[in-house]
């Protein structure tokens, strides 16, 4: 037997090894895994919000194409990836709740007491690049670029508008869900344009 052998050394080495593994694991998670998962969640959420706006555009187009007046419909926009169910994560990424979004309803092109509606979504993402989506009078824009144009027949445009006396400009921000209630009231002629006048509210 080696008289210099320390019988407690193996315990100390084991504890040190376990601590090292734990520290490396925590450091890897904090430096690599969380940002990767957060970026992924933000990216998925950016795509989901874009689809939610596309869905809303399709629904609004269908409403005025079928002249379905006085029926209130809803569109839902998620402001944060926190509740996004399509992301793949080992465990819920709590930091994804640090991403926020804002939806605003403003007036666009002016038509007297009416105005083309402008619904804008801007993100404030924690990890991924921010995105700006606009629904302007029937056209859909992503980061200022027209993704889906508005509708028309020849040179006649069909513009989604609101009555300024009934629909105020408004804004909702946060990490939850925004609901847009909308209802087609009438389709009016304004010069060569057709105004599809909607009542809208953000909740």
């Amino acid at each position, binding site marked *: 037997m080696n008289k210099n052998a320390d019988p407690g050394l193996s315990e100390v080495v084991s504890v040190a090894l*376990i601590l090292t593994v734990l520290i490396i694991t925590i450091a890897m998670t904090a430096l690599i895994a969380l940002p990767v998962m957060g970026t992924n969640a933000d990216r998925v959420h950016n795509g989901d919000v874009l*689809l939610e706006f*596309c*869905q809303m555009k399709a629904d609004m*187009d269908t409403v005025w194409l079928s002249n379905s007046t006085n029926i209130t419909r809803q569109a839902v926009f998620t402001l944060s990836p926190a509740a996004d169910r*399509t992301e793949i994560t080992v465990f819920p990424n709590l930091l994804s709740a640090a991403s926020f979004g804002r939806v605003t309803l403003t007036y666009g092109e002016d038509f007297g007491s009416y105005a083309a509606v402008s619904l804008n979504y801007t993100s404030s993402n924690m990890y991924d690049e921010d995105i700006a989506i606009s629904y302007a009078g029937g056209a859909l824009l992503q980061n200022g670029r027209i*993704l889906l*144009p508005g509708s028309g027949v020849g040179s006649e445009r069909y513009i989604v508008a609101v009555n300024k006396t009934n629909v105020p400009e408004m804004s909702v921000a946060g990490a939850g869900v925004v609901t847009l209630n909308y209802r087609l009231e009438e389709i009016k002629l304004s010069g060569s344009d057709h105004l599809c006048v909607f009542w809208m509210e953000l909740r």
Partner: protein
Amino acid sequence: MMQKRDSGLSIAVGFVMILLVIAMIIGMWAVVGVPEQIRDAEEYHAIKVTNAFLDYKIAVDSQRSGGFTGSKVSMLIPAASAYADGALFMQEDVGTLSITGVTPLPPIEISRLYATFGTTNTRIGYEGGGVYRNDYGRAAWVTPPSLTIVGSDPDIYVYLVIPKMQGSFAVGSSEGIPVDTRLQTDSSSSLQGSVNQMMTITYEADQKWDAILWSAFFNETKIKYGNIVQDITVELTADSTSIKITPLSGGSIHLNLKTPEYQVDVRGS
């Protein structure tokens, strides 16, 4: 002396076992958890694509029914998911619909707009005015084409809407694919068969699954309207299917056929 020599063994074994448990958890998650989550995400995405095609059908139907000839609607088909690219195809003449028994009609070419994504085992599309979903070569209607039969003793009225979609493209993307659809013309024709004359609608498909799909549609029509006509029979051969409608005795069949023409294209970004 021997006890002292083995004093660190249990701790070392314990440490190795902890490592093994961690490795097993990671391995199980990678082998079982990740594929399951991807399948779940893809299934969720397939529902989104299906909903997009349903919106598409409603939009193009509204163009016609609202009398918006010349109008154009733009919609996004979310072919790609967050985890896999997607592709959108527009194919003309994937099948031919012919109608006999009333004044002779030229065959109607059927087009198909469909999306595929991920493993490409699922294909969702718009064909003949209906929306279908094809999984592993077996297809079912999400909503079938429009065929309505109304009885007015002893005559019967058949209302059939078959959109003619013009365009041909194949686009792959890692994002959604914008599609422009313009209603070019909205033609309608009313035809009448002679008394007791049977009407036959035949669909000849390029692929067997498509013939089976239309056969299912014809069978649904038979179940739905079989009690207001003399007889409805459905036949299915290798690549074609047909429905034969016999009017009540002494009656005739009136056919109201609408064949709106649409121009379909992808929007360049």
